[in-house]
């Protein structure tokens, strides 16, 4: 097989193994969710075309290793009949990872799987200068490790303090993990929460005995430029708190276009941002979102 042919296969999620003539085939999995029907098809495919095993990847994906070159097309066809697509590799938008979100997890603030589906529909497999990963954590507990992704998203619970209902027990101050909640001792309408430091965990709301600390709204906090690999770095917060999944998808579209315009081949997005500076990205994305709300 020549390199051009291999590049095409790799783009389609079929990765050459160490042993010549064998491939590990990456499957299309969104947010780590598979139906039992799909799982049975994957089991059957691994038995029939591989060596009866699968590999669970660190980003919630599934790969079928030990597939001979001449079985790749048949495997793809077999899986597609059960609604299982093959994955992507190379300089593309990769698997979207997500937690179970607010429909399953008691801590969840947003519907992570639904957002993962929306992001996947819009961006999966699209060409970019280098691999580009999106991860969605439903809340501040951050099980998906949002900051390790080129774009990370975290659910955010915005608290609101009402002086009238407050008994000034200061339990909210005690439970705040970042110690940004400061309740005035004698009452009044002093700003209780410094939003720049709030991580949106909602602990103050859950712990408040009097209901003075309430949920004002829920939203999405966005991080850009994170990665792991050989030289890890954490993504940085951008854009404040977004309010809707549509805003998140629009923001990602603007970020992806920014990466296409400014990124170099084989340069991760975080490295692009180190050259352009984060403000250049934020300005660009904000302008785009104002123009195309």
């Amino acid at each position, binding site marked *: 097989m020549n390199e051009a042919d291999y590049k095409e296969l790799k783009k389609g999620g079929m990765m050459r193994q160490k042993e010549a003539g064998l491939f590990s085939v990456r499957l299309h999995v969104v947010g780590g969710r598979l139906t039992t029907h799909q799982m049975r098809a994957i089991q059957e495919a691994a038995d029939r075309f591989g060596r009866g095993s699968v590999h669970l990847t660190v980003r919630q994906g599934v790969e079928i290793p030990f597939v001979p070159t001449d079985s790749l097309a048949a495997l793809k066809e077999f899986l597609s009949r059960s609604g299982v697509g093959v994955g992507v590799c190379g300089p593309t938008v990769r698997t979207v990872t997500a937690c179970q979100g607010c429909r399953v997890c008691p801590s969840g603030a947003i519907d992570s799987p639904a957002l993962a589906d929306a992001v996947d529909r819009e961006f999966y497999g699209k060409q970019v200068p280098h691999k580009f990963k999106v991860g969605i954590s439903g809340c501040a507990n951050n099980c998906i490790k949002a900051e390790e992704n080129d774009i990370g998203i975290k659910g955010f619970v915005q608290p609101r303090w009402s002086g009238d209902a407050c008994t000034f*027990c200061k339990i909210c101050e*005690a439970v705040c993990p970042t110690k940004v909640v400061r309740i005035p001792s004698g009452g009044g309408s002093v700003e209780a929460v410094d939003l720049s430091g709030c991580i949106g965990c909602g602990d103050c709301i*859950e712990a408040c*005995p009097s209901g003075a600390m309430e949920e004002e709204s829920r939203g999405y906090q966005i991080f850009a430029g994170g990665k792991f690999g050989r030289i890890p770095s954490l993504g940085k917060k951008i854009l404040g708190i977004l309010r809707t999944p549509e805003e998140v998808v629009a923001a990602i579209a603007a970020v992806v276009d920014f990466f296409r315009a400014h990124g170099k081949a084989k340069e991760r997005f975080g490295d692009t941002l180190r050259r352009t500076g984060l403000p250049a990205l934020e300005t660009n994305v904000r302008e785009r979102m104002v123009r195309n709300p």
Partner: protein
Amino acid sequence: MTFVKVKMALQKIGPSGKLDILLKEEALKNVISSLKAEGHKVTRAERRDTVFLLEVERESNRME
């Protein structure tokens, strides 16, 4: 475990009865949110040095 102990203590008092509990900071969120979820009310809370004293009013009819 802390909430289990609080729940057991609440079961020993009658509906709408009151219970005082002392909680360390790290137990506050889980215990208070569990109390609220089960319909009990925290009617008073104040800091006592390194712990918090909570007065809890048992929910009037559910429990057990």
